[in-house]
């Protein structure tokens, strides 16, 4: 079962990323990115990082991708076509991880487990994360720094978006 979920989400992430790189239309790439990010959220879940998976969905899929699409949808339609030069390099980059995934799928789950570090029984991470974020000896400083970065970004965006006085 875990093998199946892993392959499903891995395929979702990889195919999604490949589509991001290879599709000619910008909007299609953006939607493919949604697929890739959801696949990654699923991978987090199979690895037992439930909170991180949900954050991935909430922040990337529900938040950042919406803003992406917002921007992309309002850009004029560009008439780009398939063009070997432009997709050669990303295509080659995509082939490698897909090949690895196909190889793992072919040789079976046991080989995949060798690849991955042996996982402990997945247990809830939320409480530990909360404690560590507010623990002076663990991640308090990075946590506060990240929040300051976000605050600066917020103030900056308000500054950019404010109504300027007529000169």
């Amino acid at each position, binding site marked *: 079962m875990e093998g199946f979920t892993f392959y499903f989400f891995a395929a979702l992430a990889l195919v999604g990323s490949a589509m991001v790189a290879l599709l000619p239309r910008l909007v299609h790439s953006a939607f493919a990115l949604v697929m890739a990010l959801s696949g990654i959220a699923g991978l987090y879940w199979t690895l037992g990082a439930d909170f991180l998976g949900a954050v991935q969905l909430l922040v990337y899929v529900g938040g950042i991708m919406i803003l992406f699409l917002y921007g992309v*949808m309002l850009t004029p339609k560009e008439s780009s076509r398939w063009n070997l030069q432009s997709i050669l390099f990303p295509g080659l980059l995509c082939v490698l991880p897909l090949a690895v995934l196909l190889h793992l799928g072919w040789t079976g789950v046991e080989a995949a487990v060798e690849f991955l570090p042996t996982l402990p029984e997945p247990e809830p991470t939320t409480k530990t994360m909360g404690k560590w974020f507010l623990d002076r000896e663990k991640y308090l400083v990075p946590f506060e720094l990240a929040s300051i970065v976000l605050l600066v970004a917020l103030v900056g965006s308000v500054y950019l978006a404010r109504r300027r006085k007529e000169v």
Partner: protein
Amino acid sequence: MERLVGALEGLGESAFALSLLMCAGVVLGFVGIWPLFAVWLERKASADFQSRLGPMYVGGFHGWLQTLADGIKLAFKEDLIPAQANRVLFWIAPAVAFCGAFATMVVIPIAQGVEIVNLDIGIFFILAISSVGTIGVVMAGWASNNKWSLYGAVREAAQLVSYEIPIALSLMIPIIAVGNLRLGHIVGFQCAGPEDAGFVYLSHHGWLLFYSPWTLAAGLIYFVASLAECKRAPFDLPEAESELVSGFHTEYSGLRFSFFFLEEYVFMFVVSIVGALVFLGGWQPLPFVSFQFDNPLMKLIGAGILLGKAVFLVWVQIWLRWTLPRLRVDQVMTMGYKYLTPLAMLTLMGMALYQYWGCRYIPGIL
């Protein structure tokens, strides 16, 4: 029953897959049946508010099969795809929008200990998954290749991203009191009583809505923000029919259109039942008096009470819809960013200090 479980265990992984399929079937069945009732309720309620009768013919008793008849009609309609539309995105958009509302049902406990998955991140999972539905709406709006659809989708995107902040913050306030994200634990906190409690007992905390002034404010903020989250009036800008024809699903017809419809009504139910679980004590019928819901019969009654509360909240949503006019776009944004978000943050800080100082709302029931 035990023999069945044993047989399932013998089957191993395939049994696990089978049980997953069964759970999906249960959720799908509910998701299919609920909108039939909700649409009927909406039509009857709106008729009541306007001194009309509403549907009366189909099915005999007050037209209770009207929605089913409409659904069958929708199913037999032609599935049109506009010539200039982006076929693939147009095709998958309703499914994406639907799965956001559909997947949230998985973690909702319907009675004490009766849920499909008891996720540790319970309520956070609901917030995360429900944000996926927005992608579907944006996809539908863009793929239709229609001005109105695109406007609707853009509004939807702006509105939902804005109102996710107050809704998440307002749900955080009861979590500060409870200290757990599991929905079952949140209800457990509200009906926690003494160790040797009998069938009826005074609970320590009571419903979270009345736990402190901050949770009361949070409940109000949650309700308003949840209206915006499920695109209900007065926040139904994405499908403002007097301005945008019908917004992001202008070009949809037949079964695909009904998927958007299902999504809206299922999501109404989800926000209502989450509100009932988090703020209104779940399956506890009274604010400060709790009952033991441990045997199957009581669980059934509890599930009924919970569903009743959810239906009541849905009815209040309908009531608001037929009361208030639609807000303007800038008013919606003002409401989200200038009022609900700061108020939610203020409430969050208040609740944190409140909890830190160990205050209790009603000193008698400690």
